[in-house]
């Protein structure tokens, strides 16, 4: 019935001690789309991500990946099935170099991860691919830098590269451009576009210019429930979306006070 949908949720609900954070959400993510999940702060976007990757257990509802029910699966199993997320707050291995960070991700496909008797040199063949990924996020120079020493924005870039290393079928990105300078934002947009070829992306993003440039389809969440859905034009024209989320400025750049609009032109 739903061949073209990579991911579906059916009446997904998450309650925290009586507080309903996700309220009966039915998502349908089409194969190959870049799908955005937007909405005001506290709408439940991150919670949805957490449910999809089983960092939280749904109170009710079902999750289907390629038609298969994955509601009961564990985090790691879901990741191995090809649903991989990046974190909103940067998550890296702080005392490894950038290169090693990526290698750990690549290694999970190698199937020798329990071989405690093998030499670590077997992993060197992953270096090339790791460097490619670092290059893609502009971190080539920092390949051998210990990750703690990277500035915040670069950690985010690294986090993204690590996620891509997983070659996910469905990529979940939680605010991938958060904390990045303009320059990097553009690079990430390109990166996501490139990464999206041949796979599906579901992203949370508050930078509307990124959303407008990248996304094929947008779901707006508000107070845990789906407010509306459609492409950027449809959604941004919706007065309810303007009211609860975009504010007076829908120019496509990041939200800014009314006064900005003049300077911008």
């Amino acid at each position, binding site marked *: 019935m739903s061949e073209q949908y990579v991911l579906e949720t059916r009446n997904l609900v998450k309650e925290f001690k009586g507080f309903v954070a996700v309220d009966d959400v039915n998502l349908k993510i089409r194969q190959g789309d870049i799908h955005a999940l937007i909405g005001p702060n506290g709408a439940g976007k991150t919670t949805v991500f957490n449910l999809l990757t089983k960092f939280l257990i749904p109170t009710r509802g079902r999750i289907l990946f390629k038609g298969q029910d994955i509601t009961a699966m564990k985090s790691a199993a879901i990741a191995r099935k090809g649903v991989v*997320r990046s974190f909103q707050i940067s998550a890296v291995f702080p005392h490894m170099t950038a290169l090693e960070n990526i290698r750990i991700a690549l290694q999970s496909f190698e199937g020798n*991860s329990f071989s405690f008797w093998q030499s670590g040199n077997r*992993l060197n063949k992953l270096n090339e691919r790791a460097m490619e990924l670092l290059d893609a996020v502009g971190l080539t120079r920092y390949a051998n830098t210990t990750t703690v020493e990277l500035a915040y924005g670069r950690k985010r870039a690294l986090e993204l590269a690590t996620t891509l290393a997983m070659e996910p079928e469905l990529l979940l990105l939680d605010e991938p451009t958060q904390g990045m300078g303009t320059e990097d934002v553009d690079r990430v947009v390109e990166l996501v576009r490139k990464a999206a070829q041949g796979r599906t992306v579901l992203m949370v993003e508050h930078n509307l210019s990124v959303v407008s440039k990248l996304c094929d389809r947008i779901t707006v969440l508000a107070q845990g429930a789906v407010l509306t859905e459609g492409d950027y034009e449809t959604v941004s024209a919706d007065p309810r979306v303007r009211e609860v989320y975009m504010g007076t400025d829908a120019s496509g750049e990041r939200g800014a006070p009314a006064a900005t609009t003049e300077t911008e032109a």
Partner: protein
Amino acid sequence: MILNGVLLVLLVLAPLVMYPVFLMKILCFALFAVAFNLLLGYTGLLSFGHAAFLATGGYTTGYLLSNVPWLTTELGILAGTLMATALGFGFALLSIRRQGIYFAMVTLALAQLVFFFFVQSSFTGGEDGMQGIPRGELFGLIDLNDNLNLYYFILAVFLGCYLLVQRTVGSPFGQVLNAIKQNEPRAISLGYNVNRYKILAFVISAALAGLAGSMKAVVFQLASLNDAHWHTSGEVILMTLVGGAGTLLGPVVGATFVVNVEYQLAQGPLRDWVDPILGGIFVLTVIAFRSGIVGEIQKFMRKNLS
């Protein structure tokens, strides 16, 4: 490399100048600490119950060698190691899902229950200890009552285990352990079933600790409740930290240092002051040499080379 070679030569020649039983004691504790460090230093798990494995290895080997006449020593040691491995697997299953200090405390609690079992069982000889364990013969051929024979046997086993741990730490498996140590949720999201990795690490560590206990029982020809006491679990933490957790040589150096200091002090004019002096050393380590002896040397070299 050169350093390792020099150390090896020293170890081979050591019994010519030093008392072999004492050297063997050091090797046993060094192996114990190396095993423990695989968890603390390389997986980020603080086990507070490793005494249980040391004691299980010792008691099992001791019991078998005393009661099964045809059993050769290496088989007795193997049996002790296997028993500790099995116990380690049990501990791991019960504790591995707990985090941080809770993990430490569950392992402590389990070890206390094991201690209780040993206290209650008659085969351990209670507080008299299991005494007079025969050293027997290696492969039925080599007489281990000769201190030198036994020393070289223990040295060989120790070196084998040390190399195994070295290999493990650098292996693909070791990389994953390191990742888990640094950021567990991230490792999960990369598709690793972290509990399985932790369990395997725990079991390897328990096996090596059991092996250390088995060999110790053969060396001293006794196994006692002291081995199972929580102080011993604490002692191995101290040895590891004093030497340098997360370094390969650290636990070896730490064990050598602590065993030596304890022994030398107990003999000398300060024999009533062993505890306070050891205490002072621990305090000093934390304040002034936090990375441990080996860790600090490494830091110093890195600084002066770059």
